[in-house]
């Protein structure tokens, strides 16, 4: 099947074609189209919006702040995509923008307590009551949020990048502008800190790993 990526019509059929393109192909198309045509940009936003919002939520704790910062980050892509040279993956570049916007937002929040309170308020809100399994998952989620809240910001960042966004240490190093060795050391410290914070918060140990899952 030949995809005519130069067709700049914004019909639904064309968006379906654009959905099949990789991030890199969409970025090239956006560079040709922006700012006059937004169809490829829309597909890029749609593809990454959920992840960006989730990341902002984990850093900021407040849905309102997260929505605003997520929007600002995606708008920055609109303005600056022509500067993206493709030396890293688009996702890494996007996460770097999100990282900087979140850091700026956190520093604007005057009292540290406001961030903690946002985390705590949000953790309490996120408790769907449908069945036992959902309750257990919701409890775990709330405890994770509380444990993350107790970490230093840089340790929280690295745990979120690793376990929510699924980034590698190399990608984390690129996004946070620190060397891979420094990222690794920070990560190991963050693991210990998170484990202690979670066990303290949830009053239970981390999940047990059995049999073939344990390191040999």
């Amino acid at each position, binding site marked *: 099947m030949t995809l005519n990526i130069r067709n700049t019509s914004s019909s639904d059929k064309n968006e379906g074609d654009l959905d099949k393109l990789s991030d890199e192909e969409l970025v090239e198309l956006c560079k040709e189209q922006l700012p006059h045509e937004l169809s490829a940009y829309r597909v890029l936003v749609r593809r990454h*919006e959920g992840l960006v919002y989730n990341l902002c939520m984990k850093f900021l704790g407040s849905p309102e702040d997260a929505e605003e910062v997520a929007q600002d980050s995606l708008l920055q892509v609109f303005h600056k995509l022509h500067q993206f040279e493709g030396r890293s993956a688009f996702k890494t570049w996007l996460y770097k923008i999100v990282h900087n916007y979140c850091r700026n937002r956190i520093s604007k929040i005057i009292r540290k307590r406001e961030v903690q309170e946002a985390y705590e308020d949000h953790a309490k809100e996120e408790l769907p009551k449908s069945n036992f399994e959902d309750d257990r*998952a919701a409890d775990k989620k709330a405890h*994770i949020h509380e444990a993350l809240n107790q970490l230093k910001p840089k340790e929280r960042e690295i745990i979120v990048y690793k*376990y929510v966004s699924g980034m590698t240490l190399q990608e984390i190093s690129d996004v946070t502008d620190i060397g891979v060795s420094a990222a690794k050391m920070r990560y190991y410290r963050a*693991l210990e800190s998170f484990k202690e914070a979670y066990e303290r918060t949830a009053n239970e140990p981390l*999940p047990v790993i059995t049999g073939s899952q344990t390191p040999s």
Partner: protein
Amino acid sequence: MNPTESIELNELQISRLFEEAGLQDLPVPNDRRVEMVMERAMHEKFMGELSSFMFQGFPAVVDGLLSAAGGKINHPNDHYKA
């Protein structure tokens, strides 16, 4: 257990914890939030085009009007069809 094994175990445990809490699931895009981003992008596109007109197109329009008012266009002695 040596330190490397201890770190790997911690990683497995934390990964399992996030998985059980549903925090590793791929988030679904939110249509409302996507549309808000697109609205802002279209607004900024419009403002960019307006700025281009104001700084580039508008002076050209004014220049044309002034030329017409000054009689430089359609002068009775011009022989366009000559």
